[in-house]
């Protein structure tokens, strides 16, 4: 069965002014959503990325340019990702759509993982 990565990005300082009550309410939604994935047996893992850091290496004219994050040109910061296992992209979209991450200003990108096995010769 195909696996998909849900990449969750957030504009910086999106949450700074939330009250403790609002933080907890939002967290509870994430917990419930994640729990739902586990119960449907489609949760395969998740990982948080550390904020504000990161390096970009770019090879240009035979030289390697290294830049340090945060990368100001991007509006959104990739916060972390979930991996789920569902039959189709459409199913993955449905799962991402129910994620509490999808509130105003936030971005979710879905990419299918390459299974890294040679495709069966069908023809």
């Amino acid at each position, binding site marked *: 069965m195909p696996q998909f990565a849900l990449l969750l990005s957030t504009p910086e300082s999106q949450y700074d002014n939330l009250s403790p*009550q609002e933080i907890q309410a939002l967290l509870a939604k994430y917990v419930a959503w994640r729990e739902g994935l586990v119960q449907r047996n489609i949760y395969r893992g998740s990982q948080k990325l550390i904020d504000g850091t990161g390096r970009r290496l770019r090879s240009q004219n035979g030289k390697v340019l290294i830049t340090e994050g945060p990368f100001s040109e991007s509006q959104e910061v990739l916060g972390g990702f979930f991996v789920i296992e569902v039959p189709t992209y459409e199913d993955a979209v449905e799962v991402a759509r129910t994620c509490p991450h999808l509130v105003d200003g936030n971005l979710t990108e879905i990419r299918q993982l390459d299974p890294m096995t040679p495709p069966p010769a069908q023809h």
Partner: protein
Amino acid sequence: MAERTTAPESAIPCTDLVDHLFRHEFGRMVSHLTRILGARNLAIAEDAVQHAMLQALQHWPFHGIPNHPKAWLTQVAYHRALDVLKRDRRLDVYDDEAEIALTRQIDPRQGRAPIHFINEVADEQLALIFVCCHPSLPRPASVALTLKVVCGFGVAEIARAFLSTEIAINQRLVRAKRTIRDQNIRFEVPSPAQLPERLDAVLDVLYLLFNEGYAATTGDHLIKDDLCAEAIRLTTALTENSATARPEVHALLSLLLFQSARLPARVDAAGDLLLLEEQDRTLWDRTMIHRGLRHLDQAARGDHLTAYHLQAELAAAHVTADCFALTDWEHILTLYDLLQELQPTPVVLINRAIALGQVEGPAAALDALESIPRDHQSQRYRLRHAVEGEFHRQLGNLPQARTFFQRALACAHSEPERRFLERKLKTLANEPPSPHKIKSWINVSNRTDTNRLY
């Protein structure tokens, strides 16, 4: 001293988030950090706890809730506070004492943690309440600061509760924290010598906090219910500490419990205010009433009578009447006679007149109302107009009644109140101009009055 490295918490792992966990943890953690850093660093403590909670929001969705969420939050807050303190190392404001105290808290191998007389979590919270409610702070600032740092409300939530703006609330909070620093207010439960004065200020603030929540007619309802619950929670904490469990604290708590007990019956399904006599008394919260009565007993063990005692007695007279007709108005009038000696405010005098109207009739009530000075504030005070209108109605003076009700309507604060007065004016139009059977009446005020009839 190993237990100092983590804040006290239950050993049972928590997989679910208890209701209000973050809000209450906020207050507990700010208290704990402020005890270590000193009240002068309240802003740093607050920032550190907010940071920890935002970090939880960033991490827990991916990693799940940690086995010990409170310890997790506390550790993150410690390190954030330490970073902030270290950042100031080259500046004049650098607080080396605070940094040393926090370093020892985090890692006892760095030296003995300083000995504190305040250790218990409950004592830390009380000490923070005394900081926030210091007499040198203006009362509205104390109310906002208590809500923010002790109760863990957000600035936007406080602004919604007070129909104010976030900017205005923020300014109030910043100024209050500056005063705490400039005046070097200490993080402690005050000594017995200072306690009475300091406690008065605290009770005042808790009472205001409750009233803000009790004002049923304006602002966000959910938040308002929380304000009442918080006022009761903090007053209860004061009754549980031997230093602060004084009779007037029990009196205030019983008053708040009686008022809260009536909340569920105060409006009908359409959100319209109900008169005390129209309320379904089976909806009153019996558990709260019984708790209130217990605290009223404990309040009676003092040697002096405070306004809270009298107000609690007044509230008790209402909640213990099995039906409206059985209300002991003579007892209530006696209590108001005593209360007006202690607190001769227009609100108390108007409420006394209402009780007098029940005992001696509308003419006596109007005489009493007439003798209350019409200062600028009570001119605008809608309760007075509405009460005068009602007593004129009872005497059959319908034109005067209409005038007063219209005045009350002109300064009504909220939709339910407006609808209530419009209903009054409508029935007035259908009424024959003759003396009417004396009917009980409402108290349309919703703040700082003592004889709340709805």
